[in-house]
């Protein structure tokens, strides 16, 4: 009964929606199944690009797929050692 009332007033998320959402997140991870070699490649390229603009700590870089609230994000933690002097006009 209480269950019905909470539903009636829309306070409870329907379990169907919960299932869909959990499934969506799980499948993103499953399908991504980014192999360590692909992840390594991505890391190398990121380092190359970012190094053009700043000096970074290559050994301390962390790149992971993680859940951020309702979505999946590629999270990169890239410690910056020094910013390069940019010649601004």
């Amino acid at each position, binding site marked *: 009964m209480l269950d019905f009332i909470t539903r009636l007033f829309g306070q409870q998320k329907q379990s*169907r929606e919960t*299932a*869909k959402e959990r*499934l969506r997140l799980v499948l993103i991870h*499953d*399908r991504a199944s980014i192999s360590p070699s692909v992840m390594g490649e991505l890391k190398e390229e990121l380092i190359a690009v970012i190094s053009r603009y700043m000096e970074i700590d290559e050994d301390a870089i962390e790149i992971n797929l993680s859940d951020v609230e309702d979505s999946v994000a590629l999270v990169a933690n890239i410690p910056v050692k020094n910013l390069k002097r940019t010649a601004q006009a």
Partner: protein
Amino acid sequence: MGEALVITSGKGGVGKTTTVANLGTALAKRGNTVVLVDADIGLRNLDVVMGLENRIVYDLVDVVEGYCRLRQALIRDKRVEGLCLLPAAQTRDKNAVNPEQMVALIEELKEQFDYVLIDCPAGIEQGFRNALAGAQRAVVVTTPEVSAVRDADRIIGLVEASQLPTPTLVINRMRANMVKHGDMMSIDDILEVLAVELLGVVPEDDYIVVSTNKGEPAVLHNNSKAGLSYRDIASRIMGEDVPIPVPAESEGLIVRLRRMFGSR
């Protein structure tokens, strides 16, 4: 020359064996010659579901190892014309057979039957690869649960990675009332994530338990909801254009009364 279909799922307990038994029986009732191959070596079940367990003399491994002729291992179902079972071995394991041997076996069966239905074991190991080896088409069975759909997704990927075309999907044990109340994923929810073609939807049906108790596929029973859905799926496998009805469960009086008074 017949066609070989593998019925697979990844997760166990979603109804692969029930699906194979019912589709095979339905296809045979429509006048096709059909052989059901139990590829679940070591954990055979299709014989029991079909009610043919007492007639096994030789099995699939005996055939592959040359202890008997294929003809000797085939069990003819006396209830339906043109229906046969090739049972799995119970005392061996999945490594007793390799994919090359399965390809040869299925080829031989295709020469004699219109349809070869292969009951795949759960999992993604050797048994799965064996079951896939001789097939031209794959049918993935799932239920509207997160775990089953997740495994179905993995299996679809593995089937595509082999040389087979994208599998079609059977959603089993659907409960229309639960979907209506927002407590079960709908057909569309599942198709949205899996992005495959739907072959059929089978409603939850208590009669499946009864039919398994008896060893009599539900399609032989005229009042089984699941049996009717399996007949439709068999027609679709034969290439007929049968629309897929959205299962609307007829509600019992109790359910309606409960709804009226707002409790569940």
